[in-house]
Structures are given as structure tokens and as C-alpha cells.
């Protein structure tokens, strides 16, 4: 019985330290008014989801770097989904800001933070790597110069595991 309890405690511990979240499909509008689902935009092997807001300076620094990363790995089945988390107060500023930054990727608007809350995103920017089974396999919060290297290493590691 003691061994049984030991195993149960061990597994509860595993539960609380695991990364087991799975993404549920969603429909969101992009800044041009087109509607996309996660299934429409996900990468064949790996999907990068970047949550950001117009008032978040580190987010704006990270966005062009992530776009470069996505272009580098798009032939390996990697796609980037940029999800904006601005609420009603600042949503009007998102489209001109994105265009002025020269961002070419599709930018979805999660004005009610539905997807953000569904994935337990606490702070911005938050970057998630989603595998081809829809499982969140990596989570990165915040951005400082050089973080894109950490993210790239994770992408390479996951792609390496797939191959």
C-alpha cells in the first residue's frame, strides 16, 4: 500500500510539472477582416504561436525576428501564427502598427482573449511551439535580444526528433 501511495504521489507531481496542454481549434479574424482557423494556418510539422499586443514594446521587437525564423524553416513544415491580444481600447491601432512594421505574416485578432485564456497565457509576449498533434511542446515568456536563438534551438530540436 505504501508503494501504491508513493507511486500516486509521484504521478501527482508529474501532473503538476508536465506540459500537457493541447490546443483546441479556433476561428479568428485577421487584421484585414478575413477569418482563419488554427487548422488553416498550422504548420505541417510545427506551429509557432506568438501572442503580442500593440502596447508591449518587447513584443514589437520580437515580431520581425520571428518572421525571419519562420521564413528560414518554412520548407521544414514550420508556420508562424501571430495572435494580437489588444482589447477594445487599442484594437484600432493594431492594423496600422503591423503594416508600419512591415510584417507580412497573417496577424489574427483575439480581441476577447479567448484563445489566450484557453492556453493559459499570462504575460506578453508569449511564444508557444505546437507539434503536429496539437500539443504545446514549448513555451517562452518575454523577449530580450538573443531569445530568438533559444527559440531556434528548440525548433531544431523538435524538427530533429520528428525526422
Amino acid at each position, binding site marked *: 500500500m505504501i*508503494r*501504491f501511495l508513493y*507511486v*500516486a504521489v509521484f*504521478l501527482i507531481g*508529474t*501532473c*503538476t*510539472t*508536465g*506540459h*500537457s*496542454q*493541447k490546443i*483546441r*481549434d*479556433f*476561428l479568428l479574424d485577421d*487584421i*484585414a*477582416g*478575413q*477569418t482563419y*482557423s488554427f487548422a488553416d494556418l498550422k504548420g505541417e510539422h510545427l506551429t509557432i504561436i506568438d501572442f503580442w499586443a500593440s*502596447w508591449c*514594446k518587447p513584443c514589437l521587437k520580437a515580431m*520581425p525576428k520571428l518572421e525571419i525564423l519562420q521564413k528560414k524553416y518554412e520548407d521544414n513544415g514550420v508556420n508562424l501564427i501571430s495572435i494580437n491580444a489588444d*482589447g*477594445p*481600447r*487599442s*484594437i*484600432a*491601432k493594431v*492594423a*496600422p*502598427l*503591423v*503594416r*508600419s*512594421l*512591415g510584417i507580412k505574416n497573417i496577424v489574427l485578432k483575439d*480581441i*476577447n*482573449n*479567448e484563445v489566450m*485564456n*484557453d492556453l*493559459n497565457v*499570462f*504575460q506578453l509576449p508569449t511564444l508557444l511551439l505546437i507539434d503536429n498533434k496539437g500539443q504545446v511542446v*514549448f*513555451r*517562452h*515568456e*518575454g523577449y*530580450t*535580444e*538573443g531569445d530568438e536563438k*533559444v527559440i531556434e534551438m528548440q525548433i531544431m530540436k523538435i524538427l530533429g526528433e520528428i525526422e
Partner: protein
Amino acid sequence: MKVLIFFTVILSFQVCAQFSGTTLLEYQYGRLPNANEAAFHGVYSKPILNYSWNNLKATVGLQIYQSPFNKRNYTDLSWLGVNYKNKKWEISLGNFNSTLERGVLLRSYEIQGALLEDLSFRGKHYFYRDVLGAKVGFRRKSFSVSALWGHVLNNVFPPSQPKKDRRSDEIAALSTTFKSFQQTLGVSGIRIKNILEESYYGSSNLSGSILPYLSYYVLVAKKLNTITTESSSQAIYGNLNFSFNSLGLSAEWKDYKNFVLGSGINEPPALVKEHTYRVLNRSTHVLNPSNEKGVQFEGYFNLTDNTSLTLNYTQAINDSGKKFRYEEWFGEYSSIFSEQTDYRIFLDYATDELKNQRNRISSGFVANHRINSSIQNITIEFNTQSYKQDQFKTKNYVGEITLRYKKNLFLSFLYEWSNDRFLTNDTRTWYGTTLNYKINSTNSFSIFGGERRGGPACNAGVCYEILDFKGIEIRWSTRF
């Protein structure tokens, strides 16, 4: 026994894979510096557990607050619900979030990590507004329809107060959108019922792109069961966006009249820039949807990959028999000194007739320097503000230094100085130190010690009051 352990392992991994959740635990020992009270211990906890099975997600969450004062203490089942979601359908039962017409008719929100403490109740609770009821939505790429019913949370009241006070507004709403040729038409209606009134509001909006670089959004909302013109309520909001190469412009306007719905379940767009700089965030204009008109213009210009300029103009006029004007000009320039050092500087000029603040000038900078290839980092922020109020010149200064080691350890020192006569007869200083440690990607820990200056704060478009605090505060948050 071996068979039992084997099945436990298999089943537990199966179960583990479907559980997710968050917890927030905060311990405080301290007091309000200006109140006649002794320091006391307080513990707030918010565990939320989700169970997912395919497209179904069940949520249960508690809020617990314990202090030496029985009247303030509570254990509350704050979240209980089931949500089914696929590409077409979304069905929610129990607690859910919903926002209608950009917040003009209804605004739910959750300010991550923010706790509210009201001066009258003094019990801490999470800062969110949700609906307790049911919602059904159907969505295709060209149209959507959703219907909801429930009771909206009035977060002024902490969970220690009766449920009927916390959810006094019963709502029923229907909302649809139709899309065609890059234009979207939306129509919504809401019924609000409480002990004082039964009101019906309707709204319609049109949005889309005129040209690839020019888009718009207009919304008109009205109270439908108005008897006299004096009690008529309406909200008009619109924006126009333009972009060309590295230039982006947005223009917004608003006209709100008697548009506080129920106990305040809506949050129309404020059209006031939400600043991250402390002196500006604290002295922001708070929207009054009872009688407010105004405009906001904002421009972005990305001069190079690392250099950008942001300019903003805000005007808000409140007319409650007497007119009060709020006007603000803001400019921010961000660039780099070198590959290791970047900075932002800002300058802001404002006049706030409601607060009787004239010639309010604020300025400051944030500089960030990376040492040892991003292993260590130092950030220095300094803000200054001065304005005239009844012939008295108020000054505020804020200074903060943050040291970062690797990606997970942050240590910051905050200093504030003020001669604001609403706070002190002479001058006053605040000192605080915060240590943040991200243990791993699922656990983070922070400890604050010192004195924190309160006042208005705005986060994610929602403004609220933060109380002063002197003492220590320890926070642990987890996600799994």
C-alpha cells in the same frame, strides 16, 4: 500489487495528459501607510483546474482569502463551467467570458495576475469580470450568430459579499455578423434586468477595408425602450486606419451619452492612450460613458529597423452641465545606441480640467543595456512630471533600476518622490525592492519589500484603483 501499480501508472498518465490549470498564491504582511491600523498577515489563493477531453473543457476554480479579520475572509467557488468548442460551435455553461460590440454593450475581461483591494471592503479578490449563465455560438467564415444569458459579475464587491449583490445584472443578448466583399456588418441586442430597471439596447456596426491600406469601423448603439428624450442613451464610435510603407495612422472618435449599462457591465473604447510609463499611467483620463465626446489620433513611423517614432493626440470632453476638457499630446522615440544598448524617450503635455491640472508636463526615458551576450542585463527608467493645480506646483519623480541575470532572475529597485498635496503636506518618498525568479516555464516566484504608491492604474483597457501598501509581499504562480 504490481498489477495495481501498473494500471495506476497507465491511467494516471492518461488523466494527467488531460488536466491543465493555474494557481496564484499571494502572502502579504503589511498595512496601508496612511490608515490607522497595525500590520497584519493576509493570504490569497486562486487555484483553477481544467479537464479537457477532445473539444470539451471543464473548469473549476476557487478564490480563498484569509486574514485576522473574519468579515474579510472567504472561500468562494468562483469558476465552475463546461465549454465545448470546435470550428463551428461554441457552447458554454457556467462561468464564461463574453464581449459584445467592442465592449460598448458588454465587456468581460481578466487582468492576469491583478488583485483588487477596495478601501471599504479590504478583502482581496481577482480582477476579472465574467458572466454566469449559458452561451451558444455558431460561426462560419461568412457569418456568425451567438446568444447568451446570465448574470454579470460586479467586481466592486468581493466574494465575501452576498451573491445577489455581486451579480445583480441579469442579461440576455443576441449578436450576429455577416461578411461580404471584405465588409462586415454586425447587429446586436441586449436586455438588462436588475432591481432598478429593465432596459433594451441595440447596436449595429460596419467594418472593412476600402483600399488595401485604408480600413474603417463604425458603431452606433442606442437604448431602445427610451420614454423621454432626457433619458435617451446612445454611443457612437468610429475609427479609420491608414498605412503606407513604414507609416501607420489611426483616427478614432467617440460620442457617449448616458451609456453606463446596468451596474457598469460595459466598457466602451476609451480613446485615451494607455501608457506603460508610471507617471502617465497613474494620471490617465478615466472614461465616463455618461457624457463624453472625443477624438484620438495616433501615428507610427518606423524610421529604420531599430528606430521608431510614435505620436499621439487625445481629446476628451465631459459635459455634465459644465464642460471639462482633457487634452494630451504624447511623443515617444525609440532607438539604439549600439547593438548592446537600446533606449526610449518620451515627452507628454496635458491639460485635465476635471482634476484642475494645467500644463502637465511629463518626460522620461528607459535604457536597456546587455552585458556578456545577454546573460546579464540592466534596465534604467526615469520619469518626471509637473503640473499646476490651484496655483500649487506638483512634482512627481520615479526611478527604477532592474538587473537581470540569465533569463530567469530579476532584481529591481524602485524610488518615487512627490510633493502632491493630496498625499502629503511636505514631500514624500517611496522605496521598494522586487525579486522575481522564474523557476521554470511553469513556476515563477516574486518577493516585494518596501512601500508601494497607490492610485489609478490602467491595464488592458480597464482602469482601477490600487491602494498604497507598506510591507512584504510574496507571490508564487504556477501553470501546468
